[in-house]
Protein backbone atom coordinates (compact mmCIF):
# COMPACT_ATOMS: atom_id res chain seq x y z
CA UNK A 1 0.00 0.00 0.00
CA UNK A 2 1.33 3.35 -1.01
CA UNK A 3 -1.13 5.23 1.13
CA UNK A 4 1.08 5.17 4.17
CA UNK A 5 3.72 7.17 2.32
CA UNK A 6 1.51 9.92 0.95
CA UNK A 7 1.23 11.90 4.14
CA UNK A 8 -2.05 13.76 4.20
CA UNK A 9 -1.74 16.83 6.37
CA UNK A 10 -3.91 16.29 9.39
CA UNK A 11 -6.10 19.24 10.09
CA UNK A 12 -8.35 19.95 13.05
CA UNK A 13 -10.67 22.51 14.50
CA UNK A 14 -10.08 23.70 18.03
CA UNK A 15 -13.59 22.71 19.03
CA UNK A 16 -16.89 22.01 17.30
CA UNK A 17 -15.69 23.70 14.13
CA UNK A 18 -17.89 24.83 11.27
CA UNK A 19 -20.82 22.66 10.22
CA UNK A 20 -20.32 20.69 7.00
CA UNK A 21 -16.66 21.54 6.40
CA UNK A 22 -14.44 18.66 5.30
CA UNK A 23 -11.09 19.12 6.98
CA UNK A 24 -9.22 16.79 4.64
CA UNK A 25 -10.04 19.14 1.75
CA UNK A 26 -8.10 22.00 3.29
CA UNK A 27 -4.80 21.49 1.51
CA UNK A 28 -3.31 24.98 1.92
CA UNK A 29 -1.35 26.33 4.86
CA UNK A 30 -2.51 28.73 7.52
CA UNK A 31 0.25 30.86 9.01
CA UNK A 32 -0.51 33.31 11.77
CA UNK A 33 1.56 36.26 12.97
CA UNK A 34 0.52 37.70 16.32
CA UNK A 35 1.87 40.68 18.18
CA UNK A 36 0.95 44.12 19.51
CA UNK A 37 0.90 47.28 17.37
CA UNK A 38 4.55 48.21 16.97
CA UNK A 39 5.78 44.63 17.26
CA UNK A 40 6.78 44.68 13.57
CA UNK A 41 3.89 42.41 12.64
CA UNK A 42 2.78 44.26 9.49
CA UNK A 43 6.36 44.73 8.28
CA UNK A 44 7.09 41.05 8.66
CA UNK A 45 3.87 40.02 6.96
CA UNK A 46 4.57 42.29 3.98
CA UNK A 47 8.04 40.75 3.67
CA UNK A 48 6.66 37.23 3.96
CA UNK A 49 4.06 37.86 1.25
CA UNK A 50 6.80 39.14 -1.08
CA UNK A 51 8.96 36.16 -0.37
CA UNK A 52 6.16 33.61 -0.72
CA UNK A 53 4.71 35.06 -3.91
CA UNK A 54 8.15 35.41 -5.49
CA UNK A 55 8.63 31.78 -4.62
CA UNK A 56 5.47 30.92 -6.53
CA UNK A 57 3.07 30.39 -3.62
CA UNK A 58 -0.43 31.82 -4.00
CA UNK A 59 -1.05 33.88 -0.89
CA UNK A 60 -4.08 35.42 0.76
CA UNK A 61 -4.10 37.81 3.70
CA UNK A 62 -6.66 38.15 6.45
CA UNK A 63 -6.72 40.23 9.61
CA UNK A 64 -8.94 41.62 12.31
CA UNK A 65 -11.83 43.90 11.48
CA UNK A 66 -11.71 43.16 7.75
CA UNK A 67 -14.98 41.27 7.17
CA UNK A 68 -17.59 42.35 4.66
CA UNK A 69 -20.29 41.60 7.18
CA UNK A 70 -19.45 43.75 10.20
CA UNK A 71 -16.12 45.60 9.81
CA UNK A 72 -17.76 48.98 9.21
CA UNK A 73 -20.21 48.60 12.09
CA UNK A 74 -17.46 47.36 14.37
CA UNK A 75 -15.30 50.37 13.55
CA UNK A 76 -18.20 52.72 14.30
CA UNK A 77 -19.08 51.04 17.56
CA UNK A 78 -15.47 51.16 18.65
CA UNK A 79 -15.15 54.86 17.91
CA UNK A 80 -18.12 55.66 20.07
CA UNK A 81 -16.93 53.23 22.74
CA UNK A 82 -20.52 52.26 23.41
CA UNK A 83 -20.41 48.49 23.46
CA UNK A 84 -20.09 46.46 26.61
CA UNK A 85 -17.46 43.77 26.83
CA UNK A 86 -19.51 40.68 25.91
CA UNK A 87 -21.08 42.51 23.00
CA UNK A 88 -17.73 43.73 21.67
CA UNK A 89 -16.29 40.28 22.10
CA UNK A 90 -19.11 38.64 20.13
CA UNK A 91 -18.95 41.35 17.49
CA UNK A 92 -15.26 40.60 16.93
CA UNK A 93 -16.05 36.87 16.85
CA UNK A 94 -18.64 37.56 14.13
CA UNK A 95 -16.03 39.48 12.14
CA UNK A 96 -13.60 36.59 12.55
CA UNK A 97 -16.16 33.92 11.62
CA UNK A 98 -17.16 35.79 8.48
CA UNK A 99 -13.54 35.85 7.27
CA UNK A 100 -12.98 32.27 8.38
CA UNK A 101 -15.87 30.99 6.28
CA UNK A 102 -15.59 33.31 3.32
CA UNK A 103 -11.83 33.69 2.94
CA UNK A 104 -9.72 31.36 5.08
CA UNK A 105 -11.52 28.07 4.48
CA UNK A 106 -12.06 28.57 0.72
CA UNK A 107 -8.43 29.68 0.28
CA UNK A 108 -7.13 26.67 2.19
CA UNK A 109 -9.36 24.47 0.07
CA UNK A 110 -7.82 26.01 -3.05
CA UNK A 111 -4.34 25.25 -1.71
CA UNK A 112 -3.38 28.85 -0.92
CA UNK A 113 -1.14 30.02 1.85
CA UNK A 114 -3.21 32.12 4.19
CA UNK A 115 -1.25 34.71 6.15
CA UNK A 116 -3.24 35.93 9.10
CA UNK A 117 -2.33 39.31 10.54
CA UNK A 118 -3.50 38.19 14.00
CA UNK A 119 -5.99 35.39 14.67
CA UNK A 120 -8.10 34.27 17.60
CA UNK A 121 -5.25 34.64 20.10
CA UNK A 122 -5.23 38.45 20.12
CA UNK A 123 -9.01 38.42 20.44
CA UNK A 124 -8.85 35.96 23.32
CA UNK A 125 -6.01 37.80 25.06
CA UNK A 126 -7.89 41.12 24.87
CA UNK A 127 -10.97 39.48 26.37
CA UNK A 128 -9.00 37.68 29.07
CA UNK A 129 -7.46 40.97 30.18
CA UNK A 130 -11.02 42.32 30.37
CA UNK A 131 -12.10 39.52 32.67
CA UNK A 132 -14.00 37.28 30.27
CA UNK A 133 -14.25 33.63 31.21
CA UNK A 134 -11.53 31.40 29.67
CA UNK A 135 -13.92 28.49 29.10
CA UNK A 136 -16.43 30.77 27.41
CA UNK A 137 -13.75 32.02 25.02
CA UNK A 138 -12.49 28.52 24.32
CA UNK A 139 -15.99 27.40 23.34
CA UNK A 140 -16.66 30.51 21.25
CA UNK A 141 -13.48 30.12 19.21
CA UNK A 142 -13.93 26.36 18.90
CA UNK A 143 -15.10 27.25 15.38
CA UNK A 144 -11.55 28.05 14.29
CA UNK A 145 -9.24 25.84 12.32
CA UNK A 146 -5.88 25.08 13.94
CA UNK A 147 -3.13 26.95 12.05
CA UNK A 148 -0.04 25.25 10.65
CA UNK A 149 2.14 27.77 12.46
CA UNK A 150 1.61 30.65 14.86
CA UNK A 151 4.36 33.18 15.54
CA UNK A 152 4.03 35.64 18.38
CA UNK A 153 6.30 38.65 18.02
CA UNK A 154 7.17 39.52 21.57
CA UNK A 155 8.44 43.04 22.21
CA UNK A 156 8.96 44.69 25.59
CA UNK A 157 6.21 47.22 26.41
CA UNK A 158 8.89 49.91 26.95
CA UNK A 159 10.08 49.33 23.39
CA UNK A 160 6.50 49.19 22.02
CA UNK A 161 5.72 52.59 23.47
CA UNK A 162 8.80 54.06 21.79
CA UNK A 163 7.93 52.52 18.42
CA UNK A 164 4.28 53.62 18.56
CA UNK A 165 5.21 57.19 19.45
CA UNK A 166 7.92 57.32 16.81
CA UNK A 167 5.36 56.23 14.22
CA UNK A 168 2.20 58.11 15.21
CA UNK A 169 3.26 60.65 17.83
CA UNK A 170 0.35 59.33 19.88
CA UNK A 171 -0.88 56.16 21.54
CA UNK A 172 -4.03 54.39 20.39
CA UNK A 173 -6.95 54.41 22.84
CA UNK A 174 -7.63 50.65 22.59
CA UNK A 175 -3.98 49.56 22.38
CA UNK A 176 -3.51 51.53 25.60
CA UNK A 177 -6.44 49.68 27.17
CA UNK A 178 -7.99 53.00 28.21
CA UNK A 179 -11.43 51.34 28.52
CA UNK A 180 -10.08 49.35 31.46
CA UNK A 181 -9.39 52.34 33.67
CA UNK A 182 -5.91 51.10 34.62
CA UNK A 183 -4.66 54.67 34.74
CA UNK A 184 -5.90 58.02 33.52
CA UNK A 185 -2.44 58.63 32.19
CA UNK A 186 -2.27 57.14 28.70
CA UNK A 187 1.44 56.39 28.88
CA UNK A 188 1.07 54.48 32.15
CA UNK A 189 -2.06 52.76 30.93
CA UNK A 190 -0.32 51.63 27.73
CA UNK A 191 2.53 50.03 29.68
CA UNK A 192 0.20 48.34 32.15
CA UNK A 193 -2.14 47.11 29.45
CA UNK A 194 0.61 45.76 27.21
CA UNK A 195 2.19 44.00 30.18
CA UNK A 196 -1.18 42.40 30.97
CA UNK A 197 -1.57 41.41 27.31
CA UNK A 198 1.81 39.69 27.36
CA UNK A 199 0.74 37.81 30.46
CA UNK A 200 -2.41 36.68 28.66
CA UNK A 201 -0.36 35.56 25.65
CA UNK A 202 1.97 33.56 27.89
CA UNK A 203 -1.08 31.87 29.37
CA UNK A 204 -2.48 31.15 25.91
CA UNK A 205 0.90 29.88 24.74
CA UNK A 206 0.67 27.09 27.31
CA UNK A 207 -2.63 25.92 25.83
CA UNK A 208 -2.10 26.64 22.15
CA UNK A 209 1.67 26.18 21.95
CA UNK A 210 2.66 28.88 19.48
CA UNK A 211 6.19 29.95 18.68
CA UNK A 212 7.43 33.02 20.50
CA UNK A 213 9.73 35.17 18.37
CA UNK A 214 11.94 37.75 20.02
CA UNK A 215 10.75 40.91 18.30
CA UNK A 216 13.30 43.19 19.94
CA UNK A 217 15.87 42.23 17.29
CA UNK A 218 16.55 43.96 13.93
CA UNK A 219 13.89 43.50 11.21
CA UNK A 220 16.14 41.46 8.92
CA UNK A 221 17.10 38.83 11.43
CA UNK A 222 13.46 38.33 12.43
CA UNK A 223 12.54 37.84 8.76
CA UNK A 224 15.32 35.29 8.38
CA UNK A 225 14.11 33.46 11.44
CA UNK A 226 10.50 33.40 10.20
CA UNK A 227 11.48 32.19 6.73
CA UNK A 228 13.46 29.35 8.21
CA UNK A 229 10.52 28.23 10.30
CA UNK A 230 7.99 28.66 7.51
CA UNK A 231 10.16 26.66 5.12
CA UNK A 232 9.72 23.74 7.47
CA UNK A 233 5.96 24.22 7.42
CA UNK A 234 5.98 24.19 3.64
CA UNK A 235 8.28 21.16 3.77
CA UNK A 236 7.04 19.48 0.57
CA UNK A 237 7.28 22.61 -1.52
CA UNK A 238 10.33 24.65 -0.49
CA UNK A 239 10.25 28.33 -1.40
CA UNK A 240 13.21 30.03 -2.99
CA UNK A 241 15.24 32.47 -0.99
Amino acid at each position, binding site marked *: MNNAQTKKPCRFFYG*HGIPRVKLEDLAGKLIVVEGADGSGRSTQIARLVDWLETGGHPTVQVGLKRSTLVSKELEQAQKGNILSRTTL*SLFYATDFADQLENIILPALKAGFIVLADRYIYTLMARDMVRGM*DDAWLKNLYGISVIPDAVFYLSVQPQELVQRNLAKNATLDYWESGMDLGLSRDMFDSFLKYQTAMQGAFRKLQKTYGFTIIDGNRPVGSITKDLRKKIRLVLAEKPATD
Partner: protein
Amino acid sequence: MKTFAEQNFPGRLMAVEGLDGSGKSTQIYLLKRWLEAEGIKVYFSEWNSSEIVKSATSKGKKRELLTPTTFSLIHATDFADRYERHLLPLLRAGYLVLCDRYVFTAFARDVVRGCPPEWVRGNYSFAALPDITLFFKTDLEVSLNRILEGRPKLKFFEAGMDLRLSTDPYESFRIFQGRILEQYIGMSEEFKFVVMDANENVEKQQSIVRKLVSDKIDLKKYRRRSPLPLPPAFQPAEVKEHEEDLAAA
Protein backbone atom coordinates in the same frame (compact mmCIF):
# COMPACT_ATOMS: atom_id res chain seq x y z
CA MET B 1 -27.17 28.69 34.40
CA LYS B 2 -29.17 30.32 37.18
CA THR B 3 -32.27 32.48 37.15
CA PHE B 4 -32.20 36.16 38.06
CA ALA B 5 -33.95 35.37 41.35
CA GLU B 6 -31.29 32.75 42.15
CA GLN B 7 -28.65 35.38 41.44
CA ASN B 8 -30.33 37.75 43.90
CA PHE B 9 -31.34 40.37 41.38
CA PRO B 10 -34.06 42.62 42.74
CA GLY B 11 -35.83 42.50 39.35
CA ARG B 12 -37.48 39.57 37.61
CA LEU B 13 -37.42 38.48 33.98
CA MET B 14 -40.17 36.70 32.15
CA ALA B 15 -39.76 35.40 28.61
CA VAL B 16 -42.20 34.11 26.04
CA GLU B 17 -41.14 31.59 23.43
CA GLY B 18 -42.88 29.77 20.63
CA LEU B 19 -43.21 29.60 16.88
CA ASP B 20 -44.11 32.58 14.71
CA GLY B 21 -47.90 32.70 14.81
CA SER B 22 -48.20 31.07 18.21
CA GLY B 23 -49.75 34.24 19.60
CA LYS B 24 -46.96 34.85 22.12
CA SER B 25 -46.44 38.50 21.14
CA THR B 26 -50.13 39.27 21.62
CA GLN B 27 -50.07 37.63 25.04
CA ILE B 28 -46.99 39.45 26.27
CA TYR B 29 -48.36 42.74 24.96
CA LEU B 30 -51.63 42.27 26.85
CA LEU B 31 -49.67 41.30 29.95
CA LYS B 32 -47.57 44.44 29.67
CA ARG B 33 -50.71 46.62 29.36
CA TRP B 34 -52.11 45.08 32.51
CA LEU B 35 -48.88 45.48 34.48
CA GLU B 36 -48.61 49.10 33.39
CA ALA B 37 -52.16 49.75 34.55
CA GLU B 38 -51.34 48.08 37.85
CA GLY B 39 -48.52 50.58 38.33
CA ILE B 40 -45.73 48.02 38.02
CA LYS B 41 -42.19 48.93 36.99
CA VAL B 42 -42.27 46.99 33.75
CA TYR B 43 -40.02 46.98 30.69
CA PHE B 44 -40.56 45.16 27.42
CA SER B 45 -37.70 44.00 25.20
CA GLU B 46 -37.83 42.37 21.81
CA TRP B 47 -35.51 39.90 20.11
CA ASN B 48 -33.29 41.34 17.40
CA SER B 49 -33.71 45.01 18.23
CA SER B 50 -30.32 46.33 19.30
CA GLU B 51 -29.54 49.61 17.57
CA ILE B 52 -25.84 49.12 17.04
CA VAL B 53 -25.85 45.67 15.57
CA LYS B 54 -28.94 46.35 13.51
CA SER B 55 -27.32 47.65 10.35
CA ALA B 56 -24.92 44.69 10.16
CA THR B 57 -27.76 42.22 10.72
CA SER B 58 -30.02 43.71 8.10
CA LYS B 59 -27.17 43.99 5.59
CA GLY B 60 -26.28 40.35 6.23
CA LYS B 61 -29.86 39.28 5.75
CA LYS B 62 -30.64 41.37 2.70
CA ARG B 63 -27.48 40.39 0.88
CA GLU B 64 -27.73 36.81 2.15
CA LEU B 65 -24.20 36.98 3.53
CA LEU B 66 -24.96 34.94 6.62
CA THR B 67 -23.89 31.37 7.28
CA PRO B 68 -25.32 29.37 10.22
CA THR B 69 -22.24 30.38 12.24
CA THR B 70 -22.36 34.10 11.52
CA PHE B 71 -26.16 34.11 11.78
CA SER B 72 -25.78 32.69 15.27
CA LEU B 73 -22.97 35.04 16.28
CA ILE B 74 -24.59 38.22 15.03
CA HIS B 75 -27.78 37.41 16.93
CA ALA B 76 -25.71 36.64 20.02
CA THR B 77 -24.03 40.04 19.60
CA ASP B 78 -27.42 41.70 19.33
CA PHE B 79 -28.67 39.89 22.40
CA ALA B 80 -25.51 40.70 24.39
CA ASP B 81 -25.91 44.39 23.60
CA ARG B 82 -29.48 44.46 24.85
CA TYR B 83 -28.57 42.28 27.81
CA GLU B 84 -25.64 44.36 28.99
CA ARG B 85 -27.01 47.82 28.27
CA HIS B 86 -30.72 47.43 29.05
CA LEU B 87 -31.71 44.20 30.74
CA LEU B 88 -28.98 44.00 33.39
CA PRO B 89 -29.25 47.59 34.64
CA LEU B 90 -33.07 47.41 34.63
CA LEU B 91 -33.02 44.15 36.57
CA ARG B 92 -30.57 45.66 39.03
CA ALA B 93 -32.99 48.57 39.42
CA GLY B 94 -35.85 46.24 40.31
CA TYR B 95 -37.79 46.15 37.05
CA LEU B 96 -40.04 43.40 35.86
CA VAL B 97 -38.64 42.73 32.39
CA LEU B 98 -40.72 41.04 29.72
CA CYS B 99 -38.87 39.49 26.78
CA ASP B 100 -40.47 38.53 23.52
CA ARG B 101 -38.06 35.63 22.84
CA TYR B 102 -34.95 34.92 24.84
CA VAL B 103 -31.90 32.63 24.43
CA PHE B 104 -34.13 29.63 23.68
CA THR B 105 -34.99 31.11 20.30
CA ALA B 106 -31.29 30.89 19.43
CA PHE B 107 -30.96 27.45 20.98
CA ALA B 108 -33.78 26.19 18.77
CA ARG B 109 -33.10 28.07 15.55
CA ASP B 110 -29.31 27.88 15.37
CA VAL B 111 -29.30 24.17 16.14
CA VAL B 112 -31.83 23.56 13.37
CA ARG B 113 -29.43 25.46 11.09
CA GLY B 114 -26.71 22.97 12.00
CA CYS B 115 -24.71 24.71 14.74
CA PRO B 116 -23.59 22.35 17.52
CA PRO B 117 -25.94 22.78 20.53
CA GLU B 118 -23.08 22.96 23.07
CA TRP B 119 -21.42 25.73 21.09
CA VAL B 120 -24.59 27.84 20.89
CA ARG B 121 -25.44 27.32 24.56
CA GLY B 122 -21.87 28.10 25.58
CA ASN B 123 -21.95 31.39 23.70
CA TYR B 124 -25.09 32.46 25.54
CA SER B 125 -23.91 31.21 28.92
CA PHE B 126 -23.26 34.77 30.12
CA ALA B 127 -27.03 35.26 30.34
CA ALA B 128 -29.05 34.28 33.40
CA LEU B 129 -32.17 32.19 32.91
CA PRO B 130 -35.61 33.80 33.01
CA ASP B 131 -37.57 33.48 36.25
CA ILE B 132 -40.54 32.39 34.18
CA THR B 133 -40.51 31.10 30.60
CA LEU B 134 -43.85 30.65 28.90
CA PHE B 135 -43.82 28.36 25.89
CA PHE B 136 -46.80 28.94 23.62
CA LYS B 137 -47.35 25.55 22.14
CA THR B 138 -49.59 25.28 19.12
CA ASP B 139 -50.22 22.53 16.67
CA LEU B 140 -47.82 23.17 13.82
CA GLU B 141 -50.69 23.61 11.34
CA VAL B 142 -52.38 26.23 13.50
CA SER B 143 -49.35 28.50 13.68
CA LEU B 144 -48.47 27.91 10.04
CA ASN B 145 -51.97 28.86 8.99
CA ARG B 146 -51.90 32.03 11.07
CA ILE B 147 -48.71 33.13 9.32
CA LEU B 148 -49.35 31.81 5.84
CA GLU B 149 -53.04 32.72 5.55
CA GLY B 150 -52.37 36.04 3.89
CA ARG B 151 -49.63 34.54 1.67
CA PRO B 152 -47.11 37.05 3.05
CA LYS B 153 -43.76 37.59 1.38
CA LEU B 154 -41.46 35.45 3.52
CA LYS B 155 -37.93 36.68 3.97
CA PHE B 156 -35.05 34.41 2.97
CA PHE B 157 -33.76 33.56 6.44
CA GLU B 158 -37.20 33.71 8.04
CA ALA B 159 -38.32 30.91 5.72
CA GLY B 160 -35.14 28.96 6.44
CA MET B 161 -34.24 29.12 2.74
CA ASP B 162 -30.55 28.99 3.65
CA LEU B 163 -31.09 25.39 4.71
CA ARG B 164 -32.09 24.38 1.17
CA LEU B 165 -35.01 22.38 2.48
CA SER B 166 -37.15 23.26 -0.49
CA THR B 167 -37.07 25.77 -3.35
CA ASP B 168 -40.59 26.84 -2.40
CA PRO B 169 -40.42 29.40 0.44
CA TYR B 170 -43.74 28.24 1.90
CA GLU B 171 -42.72 24.61 1.92
CA SER B 172 -39.32 25.54 3.33
CA PHE B 173 -41.00 27.57 6.09
CA ARG B 174 -43.23 24.63 7.01
CA ILE B 175 -40.33 22.21 7.36
CA PHE B 176 -38.18 24.78 9.16
CA GLN B 177 -40.91 25.67 11.67
CA GLY B 178 -41.61 21.98 12.28
CA ARG B 179 -37.98 21.41 13.21
CA ILE B 180 -37.93 24.43 15.50
CA LEU B 181 -41.03 23.16 17.26
CA GLU B 182 -39.25 19.85 17.91
CA GLN B 183 -36.35 21.75 19.47
CA TYR B 184 -38.70 23.74 21.73
CA ILE B 185 -40.46 20.60 22.87
CA GLY B 186 -37.09 18.98 23.56
CA MET B 187 -36.06 21.90 25.77
CA SER B 188 -39.37 22.20 27.66
CA GLU B 189 -38.45 20.06 30.63
CA GLU B 190 -34.80 20.96 30.88
CA PHE B 191 -35.57 24.68 31.15
CA LYS B 192 -38.84 24.29 33.04
CA PHE B 193 -40.98 25.98 30.42
CA VAL B 194 -44.52 26.69 31.49
CA VAL B 195 -46.37 25.20 28.54
CA MET B 196 -49.35 27.25 27.39
CA ASP B 197 -52.02 25.78 25.18
CA ALA B 198 -51.85 28.34 22.41
CA ASN B 199 -54.73 26.77 20.49
CA GLU B 200 -57.00 28.15 23.26
CA ASN B 201 -58.74 31.51 22.77
CA VAL B 202 -56.78 34.69 23.38
CA GLU B 203 -58.76 36.05 26.35
CA LYS B 204 -58.69 32.76 28.18
CA GLN B 205 -54.95 32.43 27.67
CA GLN B 206 -54.42 35.96 28.94
CA SER B 207 -56.31 35.31 32.15
CA ILE B 208 -54.17 32.21 32.72
CA VAL B 209 -51.00 34.25 32.07
CA ARG B 210 -52.05 37.01 34.47
CA LYS B 211 -52.92 34.54 37.21
CA LEU B 212 -49.64 32.73 36.77
CA VAL B 213 -47.63 35.94 36.97
CA SER B 214 -49.39 37.15 40.10
CA ASP B 215 -48.95 33.72 41.72
CA LYS B 216 -45.27 33.44 40.92
CA ILE B 217 -44.17 37.03 41.36
CA ASP B 218 -44.97 39.16 44.37
CA LEU B 219 -46.18 42.09 42.29
CA LYS B 220 -46.49 44.45 45.26
CA LYS B 221 -42.72 44.62 45.36
CA TYR B 222 -42.59 45.93 41.82
CA ARG B 223 -44.98 48.84 42.28
CA ARG B 224 -43.70 52.18 41.15
CA ARG B 225 -43.15 54.41 44.14
CA SER B 226 -41.70 57.40 42.35
CA PRO B 227 -43.40 59.73 39.89
CA LEU B 228 -40.84 58.73 37.24
CA PRO B 229 -42.34 57.58 33.94
CA LEU B 230 -41.64 54.10 32.55
CA PRO B 231 -38.55 53.92 30.34
CA PRO B 232 -39.15 54.47 26.62
CA ALA B 233 -39.48 51.43 24.40
CA PHE B 234 -36.94 51.02 21.65
CA GLN B 235 -38.29 51.00 18.16
CA PRO B 236 -37.79 47.47 16.93
CA ALA B 237 -35.33 46.97 14.10
CA GLU B 238 -37.94 45.32 11.89
CA VAL B 239 -40.06 48.45 11.76
CA LYS B 240 -37.12 50.62 10.78
CA GLU B 241 -36.00 48.12 8.19
CA HIS B 242 -39.47 48.33 6.72
CA GLU B 243 -39.29 52.12 6.72
CA GLU B 244 -35.93 51.97 4.97
CA ASP B 245 -37.43 49.69 2.35
CA LEU B 246 -40.23 52.16 1.81
CA ALA B 247 -37.81 55.06 1.60
CA ALA B 248 -35.70 53.18 -0.91
CA ALA B 249 -38.71 52.36 -3.07
